[in-house]
């Protein structure tokens, strides 16, 4: 019984993510209050019928803020994942196909980036640049392409020695054509696993940065900066920390569950 329930978990995770995306897109319609509606008479109100998740230190509805925060957090997660996988695929494909010194240089840069602890580096970069949301997406992506680059490079090196690639070269295809038309389709399984995992990682990184006050800046709500504001009133108004945290956890969990299943499919396993 528990086995069949667990077996269905990934589908549930995918449905949850789809529902969350829809809810975030429809936030202005779904949210019970306006995004920045203050209710100063009802500050730090406990959850109840009028405010399901309670209200914050300015009397704003937490459910509303979670919905609007979802737009920011999901956008950062999704877009940073796409950018980081694009960088990783480009670097990995070029390194794997070109070989020799190009490969050496690119892989040393990859190693260097992997050696610097990611979160502190991001924190420093965010403190230095004081990024808005678009810049934050770029920063998270710049700190996250290395694993993809390594996987793609290994994949491209195996594929490049196959006969169909030699055949393509023999009929005069140039390196760009060989990479784009013949090698990239082969790494789609690996890249899609990397993307799902990167979405979850991006959301976690955004929330951690915002929690330390160097990520998304108020009044723009994100799940991370809601927690940043909640931590001072943890003992008197814990609900401020519960709702955004549960959403971060559930969303990252769903991404990782989907990534885990994709990673176990035959196509991706042969790639690993």
């Amino acid at each position, binding site marked *: 019984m528990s086995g069949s329930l667990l077996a269905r978990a990934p589908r549930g995770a995918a449905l949850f993510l789809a529902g969350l995306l829809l809810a975030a897109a429809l936030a202005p319609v779904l949210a019970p209050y306006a995004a920045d509606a203050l209710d100063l008479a009802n500050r730090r109100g406990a959850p109840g019928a009028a405010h399901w998740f309670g209200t914050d230190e300015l009397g704003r509805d937490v459910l509303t803020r979670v919905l609007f925060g979802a737009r920011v957090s999901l956008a950062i997660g999704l877009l940073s994942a796409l950018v980081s996988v694009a960088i990783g695929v480009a670097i990995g494909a070029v390194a794997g196909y070109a070989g020799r010194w190009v490969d050496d240089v690119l892989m040393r840069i990859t*190693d260097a980036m992997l*050696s610097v602890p990611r979160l502190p580096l991001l924190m420093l970069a965010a*403190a230095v640049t004081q990024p808005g949301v678009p810049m934050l997406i770029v920063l998270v992506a710049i700190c996250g392409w290395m694993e993809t680059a390594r996987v793609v490079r290994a994949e491209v090196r195996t594929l490049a020695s196959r006969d169909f690639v030699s055949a393509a070269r023999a009929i005069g295809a140039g390196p760009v054509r060989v990479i784009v038309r013949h090698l990239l389709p082969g790494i789609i399984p690996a890249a899609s696993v990397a993307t799902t995992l990167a979405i979850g990682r991006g959301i976690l990184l955004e929330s951690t940065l915002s929690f330390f006050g160097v990520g998304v800046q108020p009044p723009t709500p994100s799940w991370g900066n809601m927690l940043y504001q909640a931590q001072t009133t943890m003992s008197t108004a814990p609900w401020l920390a519960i709702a955004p*945290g549960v959403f971060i956890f559930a969303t990252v969990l769903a991404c990782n569950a989907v990534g885990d299943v994709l990673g176990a499919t035959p196509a991706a396993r042969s790639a690993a």
Partner: protein
Amino acid sequence: MIRFLARRLAQSVPLLFLISVLLFALLHAVPGGPLTAYLENPNVRPEDIARLRTALGLDRPLGAQYLSWLLAFVRGDWGYSIADGRPVLERLVERIPATLELVGVSSLLAFCIALPIGVLSAVHRGLDRVTSVAAIAGISLPVFWFGLLLQLVFANRLGWLPSSGRASFDGGDSLDIAAHLVLPVTVLALVEAAAWSRYLRRAMREVLARPFIRAAHARGVPERDVLVRHALPNALGSFVTVVLLDAAMLVSGAVVTESVFAWPGVGSLFTEALAKRDYPVLMAFLMVGAVSVIALNLVADVVMRAIDPRLREAA
């Protein structure tokens, strides 16, 4: 072995060089450069800043500045903290014991959790379902939020454990010190155990698919011995490598955990420095972090070669 070690050491020099250029560039991308902290201070006059700029050589070409910074760094002269004026090296060194304590205890605990889970979930399908879900949940957990929740429940509500710090104000006895360890160790160990059990499970699965395991089964070796005496020693090598390669993740986890629990280690020094934009300290932390990660990767390589003769022949 010596030649191998020398070659690997030589390889990490360009790596460190690259990292230092990267970090130096980042530091100088700050509007106002390393003197930003003074720019925002109303008590510091513009002419003082101009004088400091000349005195510290910040008006020289970037390349020259980088070179003198690098030379000073190699000699152990890491500059002075903007926050309290003390040498950066001194501030870092005094925080190291607390971090080693936290990371050491939680890694030990994590290993004790990950070992049985990793081994058993590689063979038991039913158990694997449950542990996989638990491990993925552990990996997905926002570390700071988990820490806050534990503080809320066990320190604020139940009052069983202290919420932060390394010992009570008066120093405290060994029981007091142990009580302060419980919450931060739980957080860090859980995060580590979640990742490590996955690594060990994968390593075990790869080993269990090899012919010598089938041969052991065919000879009638009991299942338990196949697992513990044949498969596990072969899996541990690649497991330890992945764990050491993953040291950068551990640094990130320690930074968050120490900050949430006000643990007086290197990690909370980093977030304190971040709040004060204390760039010399931040820079030194990242350099030390990178050097430790590279050193651990080197250790992983050496250990693997020491225990696995096949790698020596291949080289």
